[in-house]
């Protein structure tokens, strides 16, 4: 796909300002092209959208943070349903209010359909206590909902 001069200029400005590396730039170019094709929109319009302008102009953010947030924003627009499903799973994990030493995560892109548990204890008693908390959390309906989301079911919010 050829890039129009306006699109090229918009990305070039961003790339120069944020010193974007080749790999990040390649991801951004692919996602922008695919969004533009799917939404029948202009790349310069996507880069000029309010959330991205807000990140680029935020004086509190450093270069790396700006790039991270802009990339995440473009990714969310490129993969909207994936992002929504990831958000819904993260929200349920947060609502479980697990002990900080228990981490629940799902794989990148949700591939594999598995919920991963990471747990660390510094003593036998702490370990046992954490296991008990995890066992209690497993009975929470939100865990069931996480697995339903991973298996492609619609879950009411």
């Amino acid at each position, binding site marked *: *796909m050829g890039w129009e001069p306006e699109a090229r200029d918009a990305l070039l400005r961003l790339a120069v300002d944020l010193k974007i590396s080749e790999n990040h730039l390649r991801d951004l170019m692919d996602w922008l092209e*695919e*969004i533009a*094709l*799917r939404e029948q929109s202009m790349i310069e319009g996507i880069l000029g959208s309010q959330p991205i302008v807000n990140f680029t102009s935020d004086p509190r953010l450093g270069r790396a943070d700006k790039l991270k947030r802009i990339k995440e924003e473009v990714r969310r627009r*490129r*993969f*909207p*349903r*994936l992002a929504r*499903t990831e958000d819904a799973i993260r929200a349920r994990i947060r609502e479980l209010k697990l002990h900080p030493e228990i981490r629940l995560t799902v794989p*990148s*892109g*949700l*591939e*594999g*359909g*598995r919920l991963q548990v990471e747990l660390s204890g510094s003593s036998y008693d702490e370990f046992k206590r954490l296991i008990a908390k995890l066992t209690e959390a497993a009975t929470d309906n939100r865990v069931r909902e996480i697995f339903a*989301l*991973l*298996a*492609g*079911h619609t879950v009411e919010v």
Partner: protein
Amino acid sequence: MQFFQPQEVIVERGSEASPIYRNLRTTLPGVPFRIVDAVAAESDRTNVSARTFGVAKKRIVLTRHKGEFFKKCPGSEGQVCCNYFVINFASNCPMDCSYCYLQEYLADNPELKVFSNVGDLLKEGDELLSKHRRFFFRIGTGEITDSLALEPYIGFAREVVPFFADQPNVVLELKTKSDCIDGLLGLDPKDRVVVSWSMNPQHLIDLDEHETASLSERLIAARRCQNAGYRLGFHFDPLVEYPNWEVDYEEMLNQLFSSVDWRRIAWLSMGVLRLTPSLKRIIRVRFPRTRLLTGEQVPCPDGKLRYFQPLRVDMYRRMLGWIRHAAPTVKVYLCMESKEVWEQVFGFAPSCEKELGNQVVSSF
């Protein structure tokens, strides 16, 4: 379906005695034939014009196949496999689907080749099937070409169907997106040959399955094959997700099940669109306006991009529901999917490829 008219047929010296050559001569009277000493040298000379994949599809190269004809289907790493064997009687295809993996697989060797030594193929098949009589083979010819798109010109299926029909331990699958089945109708498949179609809604055929038969042409051809005694197969592969895909696919299934008797369907398979990063780059160049690349595809452990798992599982489940509604006991399997996806769609996963292969052919 449009009549395929190659610009030229290049014949490797020594192939003139084959039935394929005679058939080509008879069916393509207006096409120039050129005899060459070696196809490899000829390919090198014409490399400039054959550089693009599309150009290579415009001429047929008739040559001898030097290796083994029968191979195990490579499947995809880590995915549940259906224990399938393939025969490569040709390489590349006159059709031009946007998503075709041959664009990558045959990028360095894109000539539309047809192999002339059918006698060697049958001899190899006889040895293999005789040696393993206790094993039931499921063999297809549509791995690196379309099984029937060239049939009106080369008559390959007419040469091999009678052989396979007489074997006790094999089912031959001819997989196509064409309606080129006339040559099959006078043969007796003896329940050993399945003619199968890759299926997609007409909307997608119009956009991305260039030079193929329309949906209704495929269904008419399927009904004619069924009436001639063939079992049928249908592959919903690649399943493509787009706005309102479910309306089109449900309608396609309704058309399918009102066109053929589902009790004569040997198997159905489903597989979502799969792309490697390299194939994606090729598609971007060859089909820059296709929407296939704009779906929510993510990298999977085998290196291929697929729709993210919850999305594709939902697609499979919906398809399965529509299929089961019309054809409650028809065999359905997934192509190149993980055990986790099998579990989420069917509630079980085959324990090994032999189990799945045996299930698929259990009615033969």
